[in-house]
């Protein structure tokens, strides 16, 4: 196995399993639809809340997608093969996260114009929303991968993984929605985007190693 052949195969697997990706996206849309129906469809409520609603849905959809990222590899012995491959496990894990991130986030980006129009997000802050998604979402995937690897041996690990990982997402949600809000109010938001970027970079340093430790602890 080489890093490239692994990357390619991971991509291929996700393409063949496109229904999983589609499910995550549908889940995202469904959570968003809950808010106008459950709280209020009025633009007076929705417009200021749009950024927050989209980010809450995003966090849940991403968690659901990450939760099972190692499941199949664990069951079919691929995870074991990664451990004994002689390649760097943190790097392999990072490649896997990268593939999943691109497959989930690119379709999400494509859906954003429609969804933010449905929530009356002011046009001026749309690009800030896109920016928060681009710089903030990597940290969600990186942190989530640790939880996913730790709970991979459980049959019903989804709830546990959500419970453990969700608190770690709070700062990302706070800064991302804060940036969108700041943009809506005409305040500077670049500092908040920098904060998100910093969190993503910190996760990039820590997560592959921690995920590798978790994978090794889980396969046995």
């Amino acid at each position, binding site marked *: 196995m080489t890093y490239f052949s692994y990357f390619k195969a991971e991509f291929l697997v996700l393409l063949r399993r496109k229904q999983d990706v589609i499910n995550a996206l549908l889940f995202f849309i469904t959570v968003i639809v809950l808010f106008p129906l459950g709280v209020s469809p009025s633009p007076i409520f929705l417009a200021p809340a749009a950024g927050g609603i989209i980010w809450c849905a995003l966090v849940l959809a991403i968690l659901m997608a990450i939760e099972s990222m190692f499941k199949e590899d664990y069951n079919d012995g691929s995870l074991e093969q990664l451990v004994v491959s002689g390649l760097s496990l943190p790097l392999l894990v990072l490649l896997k996260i990268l593939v999943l991130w691109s497959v989930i986030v690119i379709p999400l980006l494509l859906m954003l114009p429609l969804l933010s129009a449905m929530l009356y997000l002011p046009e001026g802050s749309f690009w800030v929303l896109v920016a928060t998604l681009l710089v903030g979402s990597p940290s969600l995937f990186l*942190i989530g991968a*640790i939880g996913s690897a*730790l*709970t991979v*041996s*459980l049959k019903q*690990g989804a709830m*546990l993984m959500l*419970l*453990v*990982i*969700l*608190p*770690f997402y*709070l*700062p990302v949600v*706070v*800064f991302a929605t*804060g940036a969108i*809000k700041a943009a809506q109010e005409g305040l500077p938001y670049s500092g908040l985007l920098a904060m998100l970027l910093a*969190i993503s970079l*910190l996760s990039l340093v*820590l997560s592959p190693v*921690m995920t590798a*430790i*978790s994978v090794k*602890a*889980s396969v*046995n």
Partner: protein
Amino acid sequence: MSWAWFHKLGSPRWFFLWTKSWALPLFCLGMVCLLLGLVWGLAFAPTDYQQGNSYRIIYIHVPAALLAQSCYLSLGIAGFVFLVWRMKMAPIFINAVAPIGAVMALMALVSGAIWGKPTWGTWWVWDARLTSVLVLFLLYMGIIAIQNTLEDIVLADKAAALISVLGLINLPIIKYSVEWWNTLHQAATFTLTEKPAMPVEMWMPLLISVIGLYLVVAGLALWRMQSYILEREHRASWVKQEVVGDGL
């Protein structure tokens, strides 16, 4: 410098034998301090000119909140020690302390809510401090849940250590984000515990109850660690000796 103590500390047997007789005295001493501080603070300390008597809840809230944070700090350090040096005592420590920390966070939350009623007029306000403690409580529950759910003990230990370390790194970021978020929404003007220049009759009992609670928690933690050691090392001959020797 000799590292012998560090390695000895990592040996459950040595730890058990060395600290066997400590738990009870620590706990009792702590209880005495805590009661002294509480009685002094609740009954004899002067009334606050702004908040009247309701401020007195700080004699419970502040020690509990401090302990909740200190316990989490210690979990993070223990997790790090375990991941780097694989010290056997570290997961035992995490197992023993996480529920205590969760109880402390819960105590801080409840006392904060009780204080909030006369001060803000509601049981809950999204105050930066209370929100941070709530997140801290959730972090504790995550560690406890992962330990209880994972059946493989090796995996459970590693998972709890990893999450603790991750939490320790994340805690300042969470606190900062919550504080920033709080200024954005400008909820409360009063915050619990941030009082300028408390007179000595007010902070002295507070200090005593903080010290008392630290000792109580240390005693409880030692006692819990000792029972975990016996459980985990039940195959070792020294444990059999210990249990039989004490029991008969």
